[in-house]
């Protein structure tokens, strides 16, 4: 493993651990402000948590792309740009956290650091784009879908990141409605961009595990990619249903969001196949994470579809149901896929049986904690929605009184997530620091194809 790859994977795992720790601190600061306001107030703790989470997802996704790039695009062009990206990106993240430490803010929601730091982030992303698109452009013939998905993710992240900073141009601030519309348009599309990178990684892993390249070339795969792309571009309006902007924005978003039923129907239709495959491949750690992500995609789709109906969104908007949606997506889907990819990259199936058992226990701990965590947020959201919208209670303290009790349960469940996901992240961190992949020449001939991970994992299990 090249030095910058190792550094990058290690950094993304550190970001995951930081996300969990700051998440815990932020929830304590939320529940006990009188204690925390003088030490680590919520307005400081939450940016640490949110930025660590965003950077974990984006860094993790790009770490996978950079690692798999040498397999799918062996051309050396763009290699230097890739290295420059790694160092400038990580330096920018460090600068963000230094600013937060000194309570220096100034950006918009989720990107709350001083806007000047957007510049190095943007520059570093341009280097990533060069490092990916330079060899990508040289590939002739039909490219597999995961390459398209990675390209789409990289390109749209660049685009949406620029769009997210348009508020710095005075014209956009002449109207408050325009400003937040553009802001949430870019926020929504940016989530779609990193989902393309992460789902592309998931597809690549599935192709490697099954050995069936057709999965990334079939007509239906391309159809769902195009549908996903359409949603990336146009399905962001549910954030803004209650904003009195032009009605066609709401109408268009509502219409596009209903196409998500097609994803749901496909999942239900393919349930048996998924179940059969998961039984066959369940001993593979990376596959288990992919299956967990599938489950969370399904659960989140149900929630998203409900929230996309304005009449329901009227209740859920501005409540903890939105947080459940965000947490379900970032932990349940994005983090699970990334941990699955890291399991593959770091050959977690080759670990000692004792450590694999620890991963398995933590895996189930994470799923159970997340499920309870997710449900507690939905419960908090329902209570808040009922009190605000149905009972029309206007006093904030009165609305929040029963919600806070549920959030105390949520806080305890967060400890479960911290321990379980933290254990997995820590094991992978240690593995990444020492890991050297077996040279191709030393792998027995029958293990040379990508499919062989399954065989090797089974052999390793038998040997131990």
């Amino acid at each position: 493993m090249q030095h910058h790859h190792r550094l990058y994977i290690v950094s993304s795992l550190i970001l995951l651990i930081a996300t969990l720790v700051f998440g815990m601190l932020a929830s304590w600061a939320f529940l006990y402000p009188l204690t925390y306001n003088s030490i680590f107030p919520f307005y400081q703790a939450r940016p640490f948590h949110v930025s660590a989470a965003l950077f974990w997802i984006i860094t993790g996704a790009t770490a996978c792309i950079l690692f798999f790039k040498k397999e799918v695009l062996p051309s050396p062009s763009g290699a230097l740009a890739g290295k420059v990206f790694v160092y400038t990106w990580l330096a920018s993240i460090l600068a963000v956290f230094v600013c937060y430490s000194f309570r220096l803010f100034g950006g918009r929601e989720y990107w709350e650091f001083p806007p000047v730091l957007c510049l190095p982030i943007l520059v570093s992303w341009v280097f990533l784009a060069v490092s990916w698109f330079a060899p990508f452009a040289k590939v002739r013939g039909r490219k597999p879908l995961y390459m398209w998905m990675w390209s789409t993710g990289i390109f749209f992240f660049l685009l949406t990141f620029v769009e997210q900073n348009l508020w710095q141009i005075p014209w956009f601030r002449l109207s408050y409605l325009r400003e937040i519309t553009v802001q949430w348009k870019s926020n929504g599309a940016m989530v779609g961009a990193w989902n393309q990178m992460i789902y592309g990684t998931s597809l690549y892993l599935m192709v490697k595990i099954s050995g069936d390249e057709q999965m990334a070339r079939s007509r239906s795969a391309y159809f769902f990619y195009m549908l996903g792309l359409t949603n990336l571009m146009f399905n962001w309006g549910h954030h803004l249903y209650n904003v009195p902007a032009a009605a066609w924005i709401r109408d268009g978003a509502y219409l596009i969001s209903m196409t998500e039923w097609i994803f749901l129907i496909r999942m239900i239709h393919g349930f048996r196949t998924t179940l059969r495959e998961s039984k066959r491949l369940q001993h593979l750690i990376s596959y288990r994470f992919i299956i967990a992500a599938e489950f969370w995609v399904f659960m989140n789709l149900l929630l998203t579809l409900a929230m996309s109906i304005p009449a329901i969104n009227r209740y859920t908007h501005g409540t903890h149901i939105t947080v459940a949606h965000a947490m379900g997506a970032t932990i349940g889907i994005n983090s699970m896929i990334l941990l699955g990819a890291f399991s593959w990259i770091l050959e977690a199936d080759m670990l000692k049986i004792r450590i694999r058992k620890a991963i398995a226990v933590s895996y189930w701990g994470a799923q159970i904690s997340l499920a309870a965590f997710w449900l507690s947020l939905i419960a908090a959201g329902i209570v808040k929605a009922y009190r605000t919208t149905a009972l029309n209670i206007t006093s904030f303290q009165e609305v929040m009184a029963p919600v806070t009790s549920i959030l105390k349960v949520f806080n305890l469940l967060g400890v479960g997530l911290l321990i379980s996901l933290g254990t997995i992240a820590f094991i992978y961190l240690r593995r990444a620091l020492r890991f050297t992949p077996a040279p191709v020449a030393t792998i027995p001939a029958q293990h040379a194809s990508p499919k062989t991970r399954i065989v090797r994992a089974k052999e390793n299990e038998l040997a131990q």
Partner: protein
Amino acid sequence: MRFGLWILLFCAFIVYTWFVYAQCDTSCKAPHPSGKELAGWQLWQSRNCQVCHQLYGLGGFMGPDLTNTASERGKGARYMSGIIKYGTGRMPNFHLSDSEVNNLVSFLTWVDKSGKNRVPPEFVTWTGNYNISN
């Protein structure tokens, strides 16, 4: 064929984006912001108010939504000034100067003019969509 479809979709996205930028606020209920309001907006971000408060339901849940506090009965500019100036048990005192407090209140009053945060039930149509009249 597939790349052609991609390009077509992207062109539609560009056109749509342009329309969003130019046409999303046709009501123009709130006038263009003054220097005071813009300074208040800047302060809103530099003090990270969005982490705890919401505007149009977007933001953190530690404190109340402030979209229409300026026009809410029993609240208004004086009420907001007092809270911002001294904080509360949950909200820290940011030790803002009088002019900073005024700028922040001006910003929130300007946001209030842009529309109402809550959608009344009579605005919901049979399709499940809203009919918000600007």
